[in-house]
């Protein structure tokens, strides 16, 4: 198992954002996570990537390492990369620097070598830059490399955060609503790029997405969360017909008796 959580819990005050979620993800899979707003999808990402500390009793394992209470940068260094729902681009840095800062964990030279500025450093920096330019042209942003990230359009920004997350050559990539706010054509384009990158770098993916077409078309297995609990898991087709899922999205089907009761109260 690449990623495993056991009894994962997180409460904000009295609200149980994540309630006893057991999650297992084998290597090479594309996993979708869906659920209504406020069901704990992003909280799940934040717990796994270390942004929040899980409540006592939880256990998270990534690639054989216990990462339950590790800080985010250590989890990142183990090869777990993620994107954010609100992108969190480095607005005031050039596009190429955005991507190159994602390379951080793979930089080989030591601190003091950098201070002294040996030739080796500049050679390596050039290699990094070439590799990152290649990545940028793969996602189609090579022409914009020198511009500020804040000058990009919404769709380009989504590509840029994707490139930044890939730059560290992760084992597991967690995408938090990668296609939010894109037009259908752009969604298809983005998903095509994501799939190409997956094949190129041998990634395992977890995708949170509200556009169900994306989830149904690309994911092998879909996990459904509601009120912090895992209510269903299975292939897209199984999940689609699951009663609990339909209930979570559309509400409960009531007979006349129940309806009368509900209205009277």
């Amino acid at each position, binding site marked *: 198992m690449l990623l495993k959580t056991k009894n994962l819990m997180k409460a904000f005050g009295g609200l149980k954002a994540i309630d006893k979620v057991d999650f297992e993800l084998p290597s090479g899979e594309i996993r979708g996570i869906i659920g209504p707003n406020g069901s704990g999808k992003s909280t799940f990402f934040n717990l796994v*990537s*270390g*942004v929040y500390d899980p409540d006592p009793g939880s256990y998270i394992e990534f690639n054989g390492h216990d990462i339950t209470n590790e*800080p*985010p*940068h*250590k989890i*990142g*260094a183990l090869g777990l*990369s*993620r994107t*954010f729902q609100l992108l*969190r*681009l*480095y*607005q*005031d*840095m050039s596009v190429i*620097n955005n991507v*190159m*800062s*994602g*390379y*951080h*964990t793979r*930089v080989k*030279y030591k*601190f003091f070598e*950098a*201070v*002294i*500025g040996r*030739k080796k*450093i*500049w*050679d390596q*920096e*050039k290699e*990094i830059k070439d590799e990152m330019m290649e990545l940028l042209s793969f996602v189609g942003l090579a*022409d*914009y490399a*020198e*511009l500020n990230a804040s000058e990009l359009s919404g769709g380009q920004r989504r590509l840029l955060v994707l490139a*930044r997350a890939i*730059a*560290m050559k992760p084992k597991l990539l967690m995408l938090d609503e990668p296609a939010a706010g894109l037009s259908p054509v752009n969604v298809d384009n983005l998903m095509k790029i994501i799939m190409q990158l997956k094949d190129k770098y041998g990634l395992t993916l977890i995708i949170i997405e509200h556009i169900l077409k994306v989830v149904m078309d690309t994911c092998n297995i879909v996990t459904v969360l509601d009120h912090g609990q895992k209510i269903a898991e299975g292939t897209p087709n199984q999940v689609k017909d699951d009663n609990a899922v339909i209930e979570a999205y559309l509400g409960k089907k009531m007979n006349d008796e129940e309806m009368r009761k509900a209205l009277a109260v």
Partner: protein
Amino acid sequence: MEKFKNIIRQYPFLGFIIAYLILLAVPSIFFTDLYQSHLSSLIFINIIVAAGLNIVKGYCGQVTVGHVGLYAVGSYTAGCMFMYLGSDLWVTLPAAIVVTGLFGIAFGIPSFRLEGPYLALATLGGGEAIRLFIENGEFFGSTYGISSISQPVIFGIPFDTPDKYYYISLPVMIIAVYFSYSILKSSIGRAFMSVREDPISAAASGIDIKKYKILAFILSAMFAGAAGAVYAHLPPGYIHPNNYTVIEMVTFLAMVVFGGLGHIWGGIIGAIIITIVYDLTRPLYEYQLFIFGLTIVLTILFMPKGIGGFIDKIFIDKRFKEKKVEEGK
């Protein structure tokens, strides 16, 4: 020309050696009196401080207003070592760098919890506390300051006049700027910038935020310490607590902001311009603080990335347009 550029890119220190050689020749060609040498030394000292301040404020985004306190620590480490041990610049300079670096840790720790204006207040208090501590300490010469600090002697030649001291402050400045260049151009500089822009996503990229914050404070403190030591030995070798007030801090800030926050040459451009302006406006002493405060506000309003960023932007936009035109064809 292209070949030359490539060589410089591979061996950046060659560029610094060329700059050093040019600046070595400057006094004998252009300078007509001692005051110009003195002013140049001041510019070099300010460049060192501004280069350091650019690391912590421009690149790492930590608002520190106590930097002048660190500069004072550097000066007084050198001054006290001279007063009690009779040490020379060659001993006091490394000592000042180390001691100020340690003070830098103390200034950096609040940055783990505080941000923006709150951090500014904490560091402002720290800087002022250092100054008051010095001013009220007999050990540090209190309000009398420390006077006639010695100048270094090389091969029996004393470097005790401004025109000779130029050749002492110049190499220190070149080395400091070289270090700041190679730090900021490497992955460390990028890590600083990403901590400034978005700590949460920096951490997700595997960057240890606390480590880089404290590193920025230590490095910039070391720069301030070096500058302070060189300043202490600057002829006539006199330091006084009044040289380390908030007014000085505002000029340092004006240098970095005006030159370009987060621009690799920002602090240097700013230090040159602001030091000269500071000197020209000496007759208007009462208005100096007003002038520099206004400079900071206007720069942030109309040219947020300072002169350096402004010039860069022109070239980047031009290159981008050319690329688009090429594609159009």
